[in-house]
Each structure stands twice: as C-alpha cells, then as structure tokens.
C-alpha cells in the first residue's frame, strides 16, 4: 500500500465545473512528485483536496493507511507552502514559524529549539524578530518553507511557491527545495505550470490537463516517451514540432516530404512529433528548407522554418553559420519521432 493514495478523485464545484475527474494516483513515502499542467487544469484543486482545503466530491484519499476524506486539515499532518507565502503579517518570523507548534500544545522550550534549528537550516536565524513586511521575496519564501518544515509533517504541499520570484532567485530556490527535500526525505507534492521546474524537481511528474491525468512518469519517461499529444507539446522547451500528416504503409506524408517510419501504420489524420533538437542538420541531409527566422541564444540558436504551410523549429549549436534566408539540409530519424493519432491524441 502506498503512502498517499488517491482513488477516483473527482471534484465538481457548486457551479457545475468539473475541476478534477476520476483521478487515481499512488505516491510512495519520501517521493518528490510534481503536478504540472496549464493554469486551470485542476492541479491546484487536487493539491488543495489533499490538504483538506477543498471538499472531495467523489473518491477517497488515504494517507499513511488512513482515509482522510473527512479529517480536518489541521489533523491531517500536512504542511503547505502557498504561492504568495501567506505569512502572518502581524507576527514576527519566529511567531510565524511557532504558531502551528503552539496550537499543538508543544512546550515553549521545545518550540524554541525547533524554530531555531530550522531557522539555521534555512539561514534565516538573523531574521527571527522581523515582521514579514520587512523581508525580501526570497526571505519570505524561506520563512514560508521554514513554517512548513518546523512542523515536521507527513507530507509537504507546494502550491506554485516559486512563481513570485525573479528568474535568478527562482533557480536558486528550486535547487534549495530539492536539496532540503532530499535531506529530510519527506514526501512532497509540488504544483507548477512551469515544465522546467517540473523536470528538474520531480522524482515523478504527473501531467494534468482539463482535470485528467495525461501521464505519470519520471522526467525522462515523460520527455522521451510522451503518451499523448498534449504531454508532447507541454513538456520540453522549445516546444516539440508536431506535423499534421497522413501515414500510408508506414510512410508519413508532410506536404511533399516523405519520412519512412519503418512500420506498417495507416492513419489518415496523424501528428508526427519531433523535438527541435532532434532534427539533424547536415550538409548531406535528405530534406531542404529555408530558414525564415534565426533566434540567437548564446550557445544555441533556434531556426524557424516551414514545411509546406506547417511551421517548425530546430535547435542547434550556434557555432554553425546560418542566417535568415539561407537554405539548410536536414534529416529526421525515424527513431526520434513521436507519432500520435489525432482522433484521440494518444501515442501510436
């Protein structure tokens, strides 16, 4: 039996919106799981149901062997870090961290020790007497983390906690969260819409779209073998190229381009996906295109081009000398493509 089990969880809001639909998921003890999906896909709702902040319309959640559907949030032994941190503005950093412990009737001395230990761990021990309004964004983030850690919960829930930070700080905090989670080994669920965060943080990633889980897997599985067209498009930057095409006897027809897929598929309406960095540019490539636009990114560059009327991009080392308007030759290897059936969006 898993540490956290979601069974056929459904959430329907009073106005009839179905936010989460028949979702089942098992999470092991100590695992770091990331829920990722576009905004409004139900990932936060799912997290809030685990926290007990939303009622569950249907289904069952159990934590550490106990069904927690009707257990009060405070007794679930979960800690949450909110997007805007939700620090208590009228309390000092110390009291922010100590409040949850006080409510559990822990002795003053023990609270002192615990808060000081966690503050040292997060390097906020100099800030304990300050009010949240006197802290910078990064410091607030640390306090919010500290407040969760100090309670030593069964499970950490992160609701897009990095989205209010600037890019540099975000990378730094991302690493820190990962490090802390490893160090403490507490089961964690992290919600984000940022696929980079998802890829870097998660032991496993749950891709959610329209209230439905599209795919669960390690970052590598999700990246290299997306189950659905949605996952293929959502994970990876720049986005995977998807060509609408017709497959006849294992040969994809994209405009006047032919790609041998080395199988015997026959699909009228298919999507052929290839990641921009999987397009192999070489002087003796089979296909030829014109670079319409070149985006220089330092070590890499992205070339935008068209096959027929379908746009695509390829990512390559900027050492290659190629300018807008130039023609280039490339190959698409049939081992690197992803084939999806457009009628249901699933992988073939």
């Amino acid at each position, binding site marked *: 039996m898993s540490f956290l089990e979601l069974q056929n969880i459904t959430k329907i809001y009073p106005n009839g919106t179905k936010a989460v639909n028949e979702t089942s998921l098992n999470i092991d003890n100590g695992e770091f799981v990331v829920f990722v999906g576009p905004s409004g896909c139900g990932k936060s709702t799912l997290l809030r149901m685990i926290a007990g*902040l939303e009622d569950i319309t249907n289904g069952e959640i159990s934590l550490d062997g106990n069904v927690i559907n009707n257990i009060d*949030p*405070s007794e679930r032994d*979960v800690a949450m870090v909110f997007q*805007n941190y*939700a620090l*208590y503005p009228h309390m000092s950093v110390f009291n922010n961290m100590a409040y949850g412990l006080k*409510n559990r009737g822990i002795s003053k001395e023990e609270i002192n020790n615990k808060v000081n230990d966690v503050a040292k761990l997060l390097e906020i021990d100099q800030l304990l007497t300050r009010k949240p309004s006197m802290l910078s964004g990064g410091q607030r983030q640390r306090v919010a983390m500290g407040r969760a850690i100090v309670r030593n919960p069964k499970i950490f829930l992160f609701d897009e906690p990095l989205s209010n930070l600037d890019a540099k700080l975000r990378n730094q905090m991302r690493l820190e969260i990962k490090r802390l989670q490893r160090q403490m080994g507490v089961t964690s669920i992290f919600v984000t819409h940022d696929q980079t965060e998802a890829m870097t943080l998660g032991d496993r990633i749950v891709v959610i779209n329209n209230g439905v889980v599209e795919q669960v897997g390690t970052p590598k599985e999700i990246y290299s073998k997306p189950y659905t067209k949605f996952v293929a498009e959502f994970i990876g930057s720049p986005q995977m190229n998807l060509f609408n095409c017709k497959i006849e006897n294992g040969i994809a027809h994209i405009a006047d381009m032919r790609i041998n897929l080395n199988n015997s598929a026959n699909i009228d309406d298919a999507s052929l996906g290839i990641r921009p960095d999987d397009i192999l540019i070489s002087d003796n490539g089979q296909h030829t295109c014109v670079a319409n636009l070149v985006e220089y990114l330092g070590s890499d560059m992205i070339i935008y081009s068209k096959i027929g009327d379908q746009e695509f991009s390829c990512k390559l080392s900027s050492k290659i000398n190629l300018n807008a308007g130039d023609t280039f030759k490339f190959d698409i290897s049939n081992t690197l493509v992803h084939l999806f059936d457009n009628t249901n969006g699933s992988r073939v």
Partner: protein
Amino acid sequence: MKFKPLEILTHIILILGVLLMVLPIWFSFATSTHDNVSIMTEGMKFFLGESFSQNYNEVLNEKGGWSEEVTAARMFVNSFIMALGIATLKVVISAMSAYALVYFRFKLAVPIFWLIFITLLVPLEVRIFPSYKIVSDLGLTNTYTGLILPLVASATATFFFRQFYKTIPDELLESAKLDGANSWRFFIDFLLPLSKTMLAAMFIFMFVYGYSQYLWPLIMTTDEKYWTVVMGMKIIFTENYEGVALPRTGERFAYIILSMLPPVLVVVILQRWFIKGLIQTEK
C-alpha cells in the same frame, strides 16, 4: 523660502478655519475663569480671569438637581461608563457579526447583512418608544444596562469590519487552518490583531457617539443618580436662575469645557491608530 500666491491664499483659508473652530472654545474657556458679576456686566471674555479654581471646584463638587444630591463629577462618571460600555460592546459585537457574515457560509448571510445595513435608516430616535417599552418591561430603567444595551448594535461598524475582512486573503485563513487554528483562534489570533487600527478608529467614533447621547438617557433615567453630562448641560446650575441671584454663567462655561475633555482625551490617546485605521490597512 518663497510663497506662491496660491499657497498664501490656502494658508489664509486654513488659518481662518482653525480660528473659526478654536475661538469659540477659547472664549468659553476664558469666560469660565471669570466670576459671574463681571460676566454679567461685561459679557464674554477673551482674557483669562481669576476665578478658575473656584468655578471648576464648584462645578465638580456642588450638589445639584431637584434632590440636591447629584454632582457634576457623578455625571461625568455616568457618561464615561455609558460611552465606554457602548463603544466597547459596539466594537466587539460588530467585529464578531462581521466575522460571522464574511467567514461562515450560511444561506442567508447576504440578506442578513442587508437587513443589518438597513437599520442605518432607523436611528434610535425613530424607535425610541418601542425601545423604551422593552427596556422598561425588562425592568432596566435607571440602570447602566438600560442605558447601554439598546445602543450596542452598529450597522456602520459591522459594515466597515465586513469590508476589511473581505480584503484579507483567503490563503491566510487556509494557512491558519493547516496550522491548527479553529474559528475562534483565527478571530483572536488573526482578525483582531490585523484590524487593530480599525478597532481603534471604531472605538473613537462609538465613544463619541455614546458620550453625546441626549434623548435616550433623558427618557431612560428618572433617578438623578444616572444623569449624564450632556443631560446635565441643560439642567445644571439653572435652579437659582430666577429671583435675585445672578445666572451662574461662569460655572456653566466651566461645565461645558469639562464636558469636552473625555472625548478629546480618547481621541488624543487613540489618534495614532485612528488615522492609520482610516487611511491604510496593515497587511
């Protein structure tokens, strides 16, 4: 430093405004330090006189009223108790009812809120006879409870607290819930400290409101022991008016000046929070 014409003009207007408000009070104070003969013969005074201690001493300690038992000091105590009771209870009750309206999802919350709001249209003066009937049936005439109780509900304060609570982000409540705060603890540990400027502002408003009540104590009290300052203003030091005695103008002005002090003190003490409460919310 140079002044532009517009600046000079605005300053003149401001100074005139200040004079307009302060001068009558100064006249009253100056007059209250003179003896009755000079006031009678020379009218209102601008400069201070010599009867300060005599007048103020008489005001505070002379027994008056029909029973010759009530002193102004006693009336000050009564007014203070009444205003304090009204202000405290109004603030506490409004804060709690606003809490219920905003945070507890019960079916009729919105209609109930508007029902409370509508009572703004029905001030005490309109419902004074029914209110009197209720209080007297409960046997509360001539008690502090009777003076205070009918005035402790406040639509205005409820409204302000409701608006304030609505600006508090939901995450705060959710985070507090996860930290094990029940509804009572959330109110005490979060809403009250967060709204302390608001509490101070409301307390001042309600204290002045309670202190300046006239009609209600007038109807409520037949026993002079429960007279209030504002009632006294009409009644005190008038008993010897007719006949040979001079009107006791000096004492009456002294009484007026004294009657202004408690609300002024409350404002002075709480003004730091009061101004904050009106212009900003501490979030």
